[in-house]
């Protein structure tokens, strides 16, 4: 996604990436970045929470229109209102994706926990 943003920017259209992984977007050299500490699949926040979604979208617009230079990153200070344990489980697909199945099969057997 940061690379796609770069290509579109290079075609003359200003871009901002709203991302759960702003450190990766920085490494990938996206022109403008808004970081959110939200679970994957939720870049604009909680379903039904219009106020939270608006805070993300307004920050994205501000960074899109107001960033003075390449690589500008602004992180949004909103804590995800669900426990890490629950949110960590909730964002993941019910069935592991094909590549993840392959990746996990190649790991030495041990408990998997990212929390």
């Amino acid at each position: 996604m940061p690379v796609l943003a770069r290509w579109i920017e290079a075609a003359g259209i200003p871009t901002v990436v709203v991302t759960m992984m702003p450190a990766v977007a920085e490494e990938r050299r996206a022109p403008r970045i808004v970081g959110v500490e939200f679970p994957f699949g939720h870049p604009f926040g909680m379903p039904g929470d219009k106020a939270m979604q608006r805070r993300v979208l307004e920050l994205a617009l501000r960074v899109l229109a107001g960033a003075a230079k390449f690589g500008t990153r602004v992180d949004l200070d909103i804590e995800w209102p669900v426990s890490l344990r629950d949110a960590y489980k909730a964002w993941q697909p019910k069935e592991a994706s094909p590549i993840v199945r392959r990746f996990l099969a190649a790991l030495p057997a041990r408990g998997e926990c990212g929390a």
Partner: protein
Amino acid sequence: MIVDSYRFLPRSFRPLYEGKGPFPGEETPVWAPFEKRLQASRIALLTSAGLYLKASQPPFDVVREQDNPEWGDPSWRSIPAGAAASEIAVAHLHINDEDILSDPEIALPAHLLDQLAAEGVIGSATAEHLSVMGYQDRSLQAWREQTLPDLVAKLRDQQADGLILAPA
């Protein structure tokens, strides 16, 4: 406050993302200045959550991905700004899609953007937004050669002054 980019990622996946540096050939800065006032600008959205219109568009090809795990469907869909949640489906094997299906605005806030236009925060939103499926083969070759020209042409056709991209 600095966001922890790996907070929700399984620990064993972190090395797949961290410390990779720029994409090959994408090391130098790119910059298109945003020259207008927001109030006079037209804004477009792009999601990589694999959204499509279930009545009129094919899903992203997740069947082929099952057979070939390193491949991801590089095609794209146009999502009308006024599409209702009930018209939108998701084809993406790497996330739980329940929250997006219940409220697609968390991935593609098209109605909220229209509301900001009505309030005068921005000039307008494009009539159509863009959807791709973010899991792609490592080279991104199909995205670059096939999808990118279409996306740029669509954005120009819609006279977008800026684009907000959100990965899933």
